[in-house]
């Protein structure tokens, strides 16, 4: 309060003092006093099946959405937080079946549109993209984009969604109008990574350059100019999502960008993208300008922030701390968080998540509370359905649920303070496998 009074005093003084022509007098709306206690929810999806489609006694579709009130997740109360639960094998499945003829399988990643009015869920095993009304949780439309929808990422301007159809090797665009609930797969916008050529004339998929050009995750910059598309076998494309068809504006090979990245976050005018896999863990920092189709391959060159290759790493989720001071990257296999200074791209810390709360948390996707005090993580289960290499069991976790990290020292470090268990026992076996997770700021 004292600080705010000083700001008011400052404004009054500045209003009465001489100023130069280019000066502005305003308290920036993103001012420092984060006392607003914005209400928020934490949504997490257990991607394990909940519905027996063919009546043979095994579960084949569905999934479960858990919604936690943010205020229930503070340290003391968190383990007993009671979520709202939505069975995706019910109304959502029925709508998909009615609109596409098939049931959706494995709700893997999801995002909210910028206004928060809609939730976009990608089903990685069946290729469905489902739109929920965020407020009512009612399904409003479902479409089947093909072989796999690994991630469907809404643009910031709310006019389109970029879909990584992973095993279809397609990058697709859905045109969106959230006000009218109109969502249209724009086939003319599709890029086929199995058959396309890059601006340099090289094949998009090439045995040496990019041996497995399945798109994993599109990460869209804040201005919707670029989608950074990670590839399963290594390499990356920067795509202009606004053209029809969408167009590759920069091409990277597997030696420059390693395989299976998915975590991506923009901070300090840089785009941070990781690579993953059992013994893969790199973080790259890309500029947000300089992309021209006349550039040679691998230009502009990203900065390699760190490499943990050859260690039990598997970097996956990534998030920026308050004010984008630091980027945190979680390693599923390493059970740790690596902290990067966004003004220098230097690694300044790595801390373990193994301890009293969990002996093997397997942290997956990350998101942050609006006040920046907590970072949440999806914790994988003992029978992971995606992203696991059975030789290493890199995605296997012992404590499926939602993890809560208390952010400390302005984002330099944190402490894993609580876990909210998520369980789905089937015939005595723990099948819960939380993966998709997002924080919804309440309007």
């Amino acid at each position, binding site marked *: 309060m004292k600080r705010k009074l000083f700001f008011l005093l400052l404004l009054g003084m500045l209003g009465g003092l001489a100023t*130069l022509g280019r000066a502005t007098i305003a308290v920036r709306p*993103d001012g420092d006093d984060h006392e607003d206690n914005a209400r928020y929810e934490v949504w997490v999806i257990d991607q394990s099946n909940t519905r027996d489609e063919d009546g043979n006694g095994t579960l084949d579709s569905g999934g479960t959405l858990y919604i936690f009130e943010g205020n229930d997740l503070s340290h003391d109360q968190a383990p007993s937080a009671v979520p709202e639960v939505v069975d995706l094998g019910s109304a959502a499945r029925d709508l998909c079946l009615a609109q596409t003829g098939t049931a959706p399988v494995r709700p893997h990643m999801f995002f909210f549109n910028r206004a928060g009015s809609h939730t976009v869920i990608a089903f990685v095993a069946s290729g469905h993209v489902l739109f929920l009304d965020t407020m009512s949780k009612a399904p409003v439309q479902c479409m089947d984009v093909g072989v796999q929808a690994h991630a469907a990422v809404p643009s910031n301007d709310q006019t389109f969604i970029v879909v990584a159809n992973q095993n279809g090797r397609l990058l697709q665009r859905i045109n969106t109008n959230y006000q009218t609930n109109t969502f249209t797969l724009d086939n003319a916008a599709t890029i086929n990574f199995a058959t396309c050529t890059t601006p340099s004339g090289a094949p998009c998929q090439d045995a040496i350059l990019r041996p497995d050009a399945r798109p994993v995750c599109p990460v869209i910059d804040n201005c919707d100019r670029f989608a950074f598309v990670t590839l399963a076998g290594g390499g990356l494309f920067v795509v202009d999502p606004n053209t029809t068809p969408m167009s590759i504006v920069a091409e990277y090979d597997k030696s420059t960008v390693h395989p299976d990245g998915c975590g991506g976050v923009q901070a300090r005018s840089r785009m941070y993208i990781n690579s993953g896999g059992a013994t893969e863990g790199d973080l790259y920092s890309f500029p947000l300008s300089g992309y021209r189709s006349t550039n040679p391959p691998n230009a502009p060159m990203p900065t390699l922030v760190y490499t943990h290759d050859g260690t039990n790493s598997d970097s996956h989720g990534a998030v920026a701390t308050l004010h984008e001071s630091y980027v945190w990257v979680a390693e599923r296999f390493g059970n740790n968080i690596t902290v990067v200074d966004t003004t*220098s791209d230097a690694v300044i810390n790595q801390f373990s998540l193994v301890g009293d709360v969990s002996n093997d948390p397997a942290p997956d996707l990350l998101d942050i509370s609006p006040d920046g005090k907590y970072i949440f993580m999806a914790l994988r289960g003992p029978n992971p359905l995606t992203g696991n290499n059975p030789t290493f069991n890199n995605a296997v976790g012992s404590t499926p649920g939602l993890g809560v990290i208390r952010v400390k020292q302005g984002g330099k470090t944190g402490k894993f303070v609580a876990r909210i268990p998520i369980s789905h026992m089937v015939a005595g076996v723990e099948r819960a496998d939380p993966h998709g997770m997002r924080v919804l700021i309440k309007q």
Partner: protein
Amino acid sequence: MANYLFIESRDPFESRDTRFVEETATALKQRGNDVTIFLLQNGVFASRQNARNSNLAGLAQTGIRILADDFSLLERGITTAELVSGIQPSDIETLVDLLVQRDTKAIWH
């Protein structure tokens, strides 16, 4: 000779026009004025020693006084030990004191 007080709240990594403060402060100092830059909110990011493209060390060497708001530093996890040489942590009370000095011209950027 006058006192010039620049209050820089913009992020140098997000706003290209933060060069305006550096150039104007340098020019005013070269004309014999007392110049202070007070870094506030995301303006403090340039104060990290290893920050990309930061010119603050050079500015401090020219005799420009550079202060950084301690609360803004704290919120961004920047400690005093991490500051560029020549930058002093300060506070809002000091800023108010500077503002009310005679012959002070303030520029909030």
